[in-house]
């Protein structure tokens, strides 16, 4: 009798499995069609760097190189220069003449934005970093100042 019981239980279990998949078939797919639909990211997601400006157009970065010092992988390279008093690039004494980020080294730890005293460098939401050659991963100041889709997140910490 137990054998018959076992067979019966097995059949019921398999029927249940068929039921589960049928239910899945009848419900709509959960897929996000990513390249066409934007993929949602969490608010504190850290991806490509951006350099921010003040409302009046002045760059925030004062070329203090704290981010370069904080970076654990040496991905940032900053060269500072004195501001021209007539036409200042940033409100402080100095500004960053060269600001390079090497995305091949960056581990997106976010230490640079924590270190920055004026919240100039932030990690934005643009995660589409694939490029066809290595040069594309060496970001220069112009690229950092003009992100594809500005998405400024200033984290609390």
């Amino acid at each position, binding site marked *: 009798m137990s054998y018959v019981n076992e067979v019966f239980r097995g059949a019921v279990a398999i029927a249940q499995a*068929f039921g589960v*998949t049928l239910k899945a078939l009848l419900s709509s797919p*959960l897929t996000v069609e990513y390249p066409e639909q934007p993929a949602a990211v969490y608010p504190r997601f850290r991806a490509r760097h951006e350099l921010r400006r003040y409302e009046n157009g002045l760059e925030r970065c004062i070329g203090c190189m704290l981010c370069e010092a904080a970076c654990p992988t040496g991905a940032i390279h900053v060269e500072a220069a004195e501001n021209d008093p007539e036409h200042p690039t940033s409100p402080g004494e100095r500004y960053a003449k060269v600001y390079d980020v090497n995305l091949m080294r960056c581990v997106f730890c976010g230490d640079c934005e924590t270190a920055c005293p004026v919240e100039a460098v932030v990690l934005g939401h643009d995660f589409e970093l694939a490029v066809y050659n290595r040069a594309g991963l060496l970001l220069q100041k112009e690229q950092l100042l003009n992100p594809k889709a500005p998405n400024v997140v200033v984290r609390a910490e």
Partner: protein
Amino acid sequence: MDWINLILIPAIKSVILVVVLLTGFAYLTWVERKLIGRFQQRIGPNRAWKFGLGHPIADALKMIFKEETIPNYTDKILFALGPGLALAPSLLIFAVIPVGPTLRMFGKDIPFVVADVNIGLLWVLAVGGIGTYGTVLGGWASNNKYSLLGALRTSAQMLSYELPMGILIIALLLTTALGTADGSGTLNLVEIVRMDRPWWLWAWIWLAFPLYFICMLAETGRKPFDFPETENELVAGYQTEYGSIKFALYYMTEYLHVLGASGVAVSVFFGGWRGPFVEQFPGLGLLYFTIKLLAMVFLFIWASASVPRPRYDQLLKFCWTFLFPAALIYMAITAVGVVLL
């Protein structure tokens, strides 16, 4: 004008059948991928063309233009022979499956079956049995442990499941004795489809369908019984060393087996091309057959999406300790019933 009936018409029918089957195979892969996608709440292929309808063509092109390699230390002859030996029988099964009633075309009665032979079902069993060789030889010739294991599994699995399948078919053949005029039964698939059966006989036949369906899954090597090619134990089983068009032939074989097994099952269990109004409009038969065939294929895919793969010893144990006795009991009851009625 004997040669028209004898050679020309069967040749035309065969060509049409092969073309339809090969296109059907290509789009069966699309249907499967789409359906499996939906079963897993995904969308499935949708990149090439509308609804991903271009995927089968893209796949075929990719397969054809890939480099064809024959690894060293393989048995070259058998390695090349394997895929062909696998594919040919899977096409041959369709020769005896009636896909529609007899139609009047061009002033001739043309039956919608390539070969109306009186051993129809035996032909299916015979050709199905030969289909094993392609897999077994290909696996052995690859000179690869995974392939060899896949080949060994194939032969044991096919041999084991052929038994309950054959016995179930015998039982169904016994029931045909109730349908023919002289009570002697028939093996001819065309006649089996034509046969009028009372509802209780249909109910009894359908009782055997779950068992038969399990045998079919195992015989076609489909999930959940895809032991010849279990990817997480044997890489790709018997087809590990194959690439390019040879791999495509094996791939084709698998889907043609599904179509063939579905065709046989539809003819034996569900009345083939029969349906309402088919007597008035014989063309409807083709439609009914296609619908039933697709329903059966859907069942295959549904099963592959629902049930996980058992262990190999469980597979054989299940066959010998449950399926085989169950089929024997079913046949015994059927035989007694047929004699008494």
